């Protein structure tokens, strides 16, 4: 009957979202008067999940699961949910979880709500608040199936410590053959990704050309931030489309979003609405982005950004 949560890890280490979904699952379990069981695949230290309110961990260790495969992972999570007779299953909103969730929903005959941003407003009927229209609105969604699948939006509820002891049990699911084979993974390991970043530094057409991105990267580097861009910039090929933020690009739910030389088209604003604090640097005081921003600097990016980078370096040195 426990709430089941899929806690993602990478190379044996839990991702931060694993702790966020665990915190969320605990809040749901409290509303339902039950406990939280985690399904954990090839992670090294499952007992750490106890910090976030998980009381039982189904610990899978199998080299066949070293590479992520949506269908296989969905099948493993399904077996865990069935063993635990879980009525609520929680996953995150990483690319991997969004890939496996619809397959898991079919496997469990579970109604699925993605992009959920808060604890259920009611557990009977089961009603959750999710974003819609690419963050231009929220939608209260009722799930009517016996088993419910919730996809939690990143950074929406944060981490909540709820220390308990997690009992770790070995779990050996059957691992089915799968029709999609991963041939190669090409992933930069030394840069912060938009998905993981607490801070995102984003540049627009105001930067005039790809040769000027050095100052964006430098500012991102000081802040341990990811770099991103507006749609015209990726359309022009100045930056890879994986960095495009907006309605047809990536949504950003960072703590701080810094927009440099981006005027703030409605499609771009929709993609960053879920970020907590927005700082805009633009020469044009009439740029629509200033209406959506928390902080703004009206000025030339080519002067403001290097100066801000220096100030932040000094701040960091002082606060190290």
């Amino acid at each position, binding site marked *: 009957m426990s709430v089941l949560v899929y806690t993602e890890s990478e190379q044996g280490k839990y991702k931060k979202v694993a702790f966020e979904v665990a915190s969320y699952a605990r809040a749901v379990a409290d509303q339902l008067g039950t406990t939280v069981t985690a399904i954990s695949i090839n992670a090294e230290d499952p007992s750490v999940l106890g910090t976030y309110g998980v009381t039982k961990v189904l610990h899978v260790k199998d080299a066949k699961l070293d590479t992520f495969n949506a*269908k296989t992972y969905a099948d493993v999570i399904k077996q865990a949910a069935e063993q635990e007779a879980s009525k609520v299953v929680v996953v995150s909103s990483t690319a991997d979880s969004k890939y496996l969730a619809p397959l898991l929903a079919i496997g469990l005959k579970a109604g699925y709500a993605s992009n959920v941003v808060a604890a259920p407003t009611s557990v009977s009927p089961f009603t959750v608040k999710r974003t819609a229209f690419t963050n231009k609105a929220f939608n209260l969604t009722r799930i009517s199936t016996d088993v419910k699948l919730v996809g939690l939006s990143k950074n929406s509820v944060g981490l909540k410590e709820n220390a308990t002891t997690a009992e770790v049990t070995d779990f050996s699911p059957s691992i089915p053959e799968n029709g999609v084979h991963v041939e190669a993974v090409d992933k930069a390991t030394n840069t912060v990704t938009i998905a993981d970043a607490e801070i995102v530094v984003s540049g627009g057409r105001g930067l005039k050309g790809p040769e000027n991105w050095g100052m964006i990267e430098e500012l991102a580097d000081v802040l341990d931030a990811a770099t991103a861009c507006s749609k015209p910039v990726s359309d022009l090929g100045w930056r890879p489309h994986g960095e495009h933020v907006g309605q047809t690009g990536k949504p950003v739910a960072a703590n701080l979003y810094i927009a440099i030389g981006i005027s703030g088209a409605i499609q771009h604003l929709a993609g960053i609405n879920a970020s907590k604090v927005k700082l805009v640097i633009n020469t044009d005081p009439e740029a629509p982005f200033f209406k959506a921003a928390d902080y703004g600097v009206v000025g030339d990016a080519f002067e403001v950004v290097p100066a801000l980078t220096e100030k932040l370096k000094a701040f960091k040195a002082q606060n190290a």
Partner: protein
Amino acid sequence: MKILVCISHVPDTTSKINFSEGDTKFDTNGVQFIINPNDEYGLTRAMWFKEKQGATVDVVNVGGPETEPTLRKALALGADGAIRVNTPAVDGYAVAEQLAKVFTDGSYDLVIAGRESIDYNGGMVPGMLAGLTDANFINTCISLEIDGTNVKAIREIDGGKETVSTTLPLVIGAQKGLVEESDLRIPNMRGIMMARKKPLTVLEPVEASQETESVKFEKPTPKGAVTLVSPDNLDELVNLLHNEAKVI
């Protein structure tokens, strides 16, 4: 090769979003509807297969008669035929069930659907469709090559990309990157004229379950005015980000 492209009929990306009937319904007043952008990348790639490798391309939408102009636009862009399943798109699962029936009955080799629609952003229809039909599934697809029944694809993952191989029948979740932005087309007069003569088949829905229900909409609370900082006083900006916003 038979390709089916799923087309969502969605508000234009610049639309202001409003609700009616006590915030329970999306207000379509004054809203322009377009082909969901993620579907448009997929449709463009399907047209490439048609022109370079030989394929027939059908488009499909689950919805009322109001979605037909969007399907006609897809025909004007070069699709061979269109299918409308005559039932409102009430939830992702119900839509996937209708599409699964069209997919199976039409013996399609490849189904292309946008990874998510820009209205409800559920991101579930392509995967559920694959799950219901037991087809292979590749999400967030940014490159797709097909040789016979063998498929090589590249998909976007968090912080990089992944090369995968599989076989038809296949469902992909399409997105930006699958084709060059410059390859996206707008319908020309000839295409529009020809689209009028192409078949648009209306199918009655199969009985399908609805698993979720939209109860109410809310708009984000309006935010306060921006705090402007002079470019000559960036120390103040650092101070605000640290002490007030607490983000650094």
